[in-house]
């Protein structure tokens, strides 16, 4: 989880004004360098562990940011602004995926298997078949959360943001973030009651 903690620190930091690149292109390249790892990681969590889709979504989010960068007026931190773009792109991707799955279902075509089955992570505790099954259930539980609860759970518990930082990114009141977090945890604990089994 060191990477997640590092990402939280990066998000919390503000680029010093003196270090700001001069041209929009330089500013964009700096944004990519600073945010690419966190962007892919966040998209990965939000998409339930689909690495390929996470990279695609992150690429699209960066492209959108590139086109919108000239209009960025600094009302929020650049990383916060970009995180919003990324989360919107994730929502767009999931909406398209939903439509695609329904369209395929109409023709009796089974959708693609879960990404974790297609491309299981090699170095995690989910390397055995039994744990992979649990991992798929975790994925379903995470993706089954309402969008607001899922965002809050991922940002706070997987990305390591504070409630205040999460509230800023999602433009919500801190009390709303806490409420989402409470409900998300309650639901996940109910659905993944046997999670302790994966511990070594």
């Amino acid at each position, binding site marked *: 989880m060191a990477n997640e903690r590092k990402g939280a620190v990066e998000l919390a930091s503000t680029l010093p004004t003196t270090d700001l690149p001069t041209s929009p292109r330089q500013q964009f390249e700096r944004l*990519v360098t600073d945010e690419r790892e966190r962007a892919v*990681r966040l998209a990965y969590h939000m998409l339930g562990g689909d*690495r390929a889709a996470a990279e695609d979504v992150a690429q699209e989010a960066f492209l959108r940011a590139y086109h919108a960068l000239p209009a960025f007026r600094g009302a929020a931190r650049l990383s916060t602004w970009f995180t919003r773009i990324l989360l919107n792109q994730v929502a767009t991707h999931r909406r398209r995926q939903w439509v695609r799955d329904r369209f395929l279902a109409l023709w009796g075509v089974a959708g693609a298997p879960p990404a974790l089955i297609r491309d299981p992570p090699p*170095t995690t505790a989910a390397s055995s078949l039994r744990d992979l099954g649990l*991992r798929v259930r975790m994925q379903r539980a995470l993706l089954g959360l309402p969008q607001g609860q899922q965002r809050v759970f991922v940002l706070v518990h*997987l990305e390591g943001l504070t409630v205040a930082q999460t509230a800023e990114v999602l433009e919500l009141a801190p009390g709303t973030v806490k409420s989402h977090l409470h409900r998300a*945890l309650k639901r996940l604990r109910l659905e993944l009651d046997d999670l302790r089994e994966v511990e070594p």
Partner: protein
Amino acid sequence: MSVHQDERRDDAGDRRFVDRFRKAWGPVEFSPRAATAFSARLLARVDGGGRRRLGLPTLIGVAVVAAMAVAVWIGRVGSLPDVDWLASLADAESVLSSSTVLDAEEATDDAGVDGDATDADNEDLELNHEYQMLLAWVAPSDQELEDGWTP
């Protein structure tokens, strides 16, 4: 047990659950090589004008237009048997009008045996009327012929 004790126990349970969740979920590997490849791919897309893949709405639009084109084509092909059917009807009419029975009645009529219209006359007129109507429907108008209409 007090409410505060319950809340503390819940908080501790939540923390343990989150720790277990993180362990089971595992880290997201992003090697320096993958990071470099990611940036190179992204900057190439930026330099290439940010060309986007065809989205689902675009694909659906293309599919609908293609389906309409196929439907129009099938409609044109499907209308050909109708034209053949009309032609065969006209042929049948001409055969019928020249049949022996009609010819015989016509001959009788021509000989002045029956001054009124015979059944053959009536049937012939009726068929002829229908045929003219069909011809008017099928045959291109003068304006269409001027416009270069071809069957």
